[in-house]
């Protein structure tokens, strides 16, 4: 990095983005923080300030513990798996010649696939009596499982679905990163008789580390906010069909949605804001750790 500080110029380059972000991102963010400390806010007016009440209400929600549990599992299981799988696919895809274009196109297709179609397809994959997954399991003599019928199996399905949902973007980012790695490094590694796996771990991964850091940080942030994928799989009740709410797949953002859906009731928007702040603090702490770790490992 250059030594010279160029304050004025830098702010000039930042101006267009910051101007828009101030109005449409920072201002709402500050507003959300403010809302969390208002009393009985509804329809733009409140009766005063409170300190912790809205936060206490969030924690007192009967589904709060369930939401924390679900969110944690999704975050800490799906992200490492999806990043690893996407990285493997990208590297292998980048290494082949025949059918490369065709396969790339297929891997990007989820981006242009309609959400209803995705929901339907997964309903078909996970269906107990005629689903694709059970069909495949029957080949290895495993009895059919009602994948969407309970929390445990539902979580497995959800994780598969979540990994699937994130693959396209991650592959796209990794491929664009791989494309910008100088090919000479690979020639050098070949001449030095580097085994394929070592090329991957010692050269590709470090050289791709800015992109891996990006994907890791944004995926963690994204999966802390998981909810829409769950609605896609389990419907708006986020419940395996025919179970009671103690098997719910509610997440923190689910709680926020629920509160927001009652925004015509005094205090509910503030509760949503309070829950957002709790999520924000958790995610921020985690992201700082994440970036601190990656700063040590990312070489650029």
């Amino acid at each position, binding site marked *: 990095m250059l030594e010279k500080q160029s304050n004025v110029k830098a702010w000039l380059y930042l101006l267009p983005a910051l101007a828009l972000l101030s109005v449409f991102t920072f201002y709402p963010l500050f507003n959300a923080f403010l809302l969390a400390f208002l009393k009985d806010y509804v329809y733009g007016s409140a009766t005063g300030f409170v300190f912790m009440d809205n936060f206490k209400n969030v924690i007192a929600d009967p589904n709060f513990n369930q939401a924390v549990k679900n969110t944690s599992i999704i975050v800490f299981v799906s992200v490492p798996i999806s990043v690893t799988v996407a990285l493997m696919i990208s590297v292998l895809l980048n290494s082949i010649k025949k059918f490369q274009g065709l396969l790339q196109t297929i891997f990007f297709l989820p981006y242009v696939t309609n959400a209803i179609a995705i929901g339907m397809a997964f309903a078909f994959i996970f269906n107990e009596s005629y689903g694709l997954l059970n069909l495949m399991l029957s080949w290895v003599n495993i009895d059919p499982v009602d994948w969407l019928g309970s929390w445990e199996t539902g979580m497995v399905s959800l994780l598969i679905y979540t990994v699937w949902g994130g693959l396209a973007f991650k592959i796209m980012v990794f491929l664009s990163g791989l494309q910008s790695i*100088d090919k*000479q*490094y690979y*020639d*050098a590694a*070949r*001449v*030095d*008789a*580097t*085994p394929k796996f*070592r090329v991957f771990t*010692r*050269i590709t991964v*470090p*050289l791709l*580390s800015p992109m891996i850091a990006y994907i890791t940080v944004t995926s963690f942030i994204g999966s802390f906010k998981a909810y829409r994928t769950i609605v896609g799989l389990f419907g708006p009740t986020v419940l395996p069909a025919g179970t009671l709410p103690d098997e719910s797949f509610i997440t923190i953002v689910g709680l926020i949605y629920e509160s927001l859906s009652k925004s015509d009731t005094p205090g509910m928007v503030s509760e949503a804001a309070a829950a957002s702040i709790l999520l924000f603090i958790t995610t921020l702490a985690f992201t700082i750790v994440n970036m601190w770790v990656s700063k040590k490992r990312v*070489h*650029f």
Partner: protein
Amino acid sequence: MEIKLQDLTKIFQAKDKTETVAVKSLDITIPSGKLIGLLGPSGCGKSTTLYMIAGLLKPNNGRIFFGDEDVTDMAPEDRGIGLVFQNYALYPHMSVQQNIMFPLENIKVPKDEALVRAQEMADLVGIGDLMSRKPKQLSGGQQQRVAIARALVKKPRVLLLDEPLSNLDARLRLQTREEIKRIQRETGITTIFVTHDQEEAMSISDEIVLMELGEKRQMGEPQDVYDFPNNLFVARFLGTPPINMYDGVISKKNVLVNGKAIGTTKGADGEVFVGIRPEGYIIDKDGPLELTVYMVETIGRDTALIIKVPNTENDTFRVIVDASERIKPGEVVKMKIKPKKMFVFNKETGELIN
């Protein structure tokens, strides 16, 4: 390790199916322990040749031998070569030490031994005190040495260098080429190095191979090639300032330029090119050539006379004479030619006649 290239051919196919012959039926034998420069203008196939020797490119035809061993179908990692890339291809995320040790790790050299060997090699190339730095904290010359150390550390049978000096500034280039020569002498590894810079090639190579359009034009010790160019291309390519090329005629074993005989030849009568090295002129008031001096450049011990000669391929020629000769612009000087500095070429084939 002697390296033998037999009938080596490489054809590249573009997306629109047009084919380019990069290397054409190349036969070269590189004696063991020598430093060989592959020299030629850009696009002549020299890097392609190097990459085929490295195994990074597969020839369409022909064989490559290391000693008696046919390595044509061998993967690069099995050939036992060290390769220094034009941009060095140092791994940016590894320190100098890690970069140098990397090839050793691949062949599972124990860590203690690897550390010692890396240090030895770093000392050999003179960067022993920079081991903990990252490549981007190094100057171009230092990076270049790291690249050489990395190539040498696994004791390769052959060292290949791809335009290793092109990214360096003039002073550093001079210094580094001596360094390369020294390292090569000390290690005794057969070394091939690719360059488009004739001075570079001539100054450090034991032998040079001149290539044009994918074909070998001449091979030999630098001075021999300079003194006895086989053909028009070699004569033109080597030498700074370049050779002066006249249209001439052979008539009864005499070489005539502008109707004046300037020397003799064995060749048959006909139109020819006559090349005279700038240092091949002697001032002689009985000389057959009458030259009008256009400008005078004095460079140290030599003086270059710039002569305008109309209707030749580049109409300014340089003639180098001793600095003691006081000649002014506008003067007409009579010259004769040193016999060994005149080359007569067939106008069609470009072959030397002499």
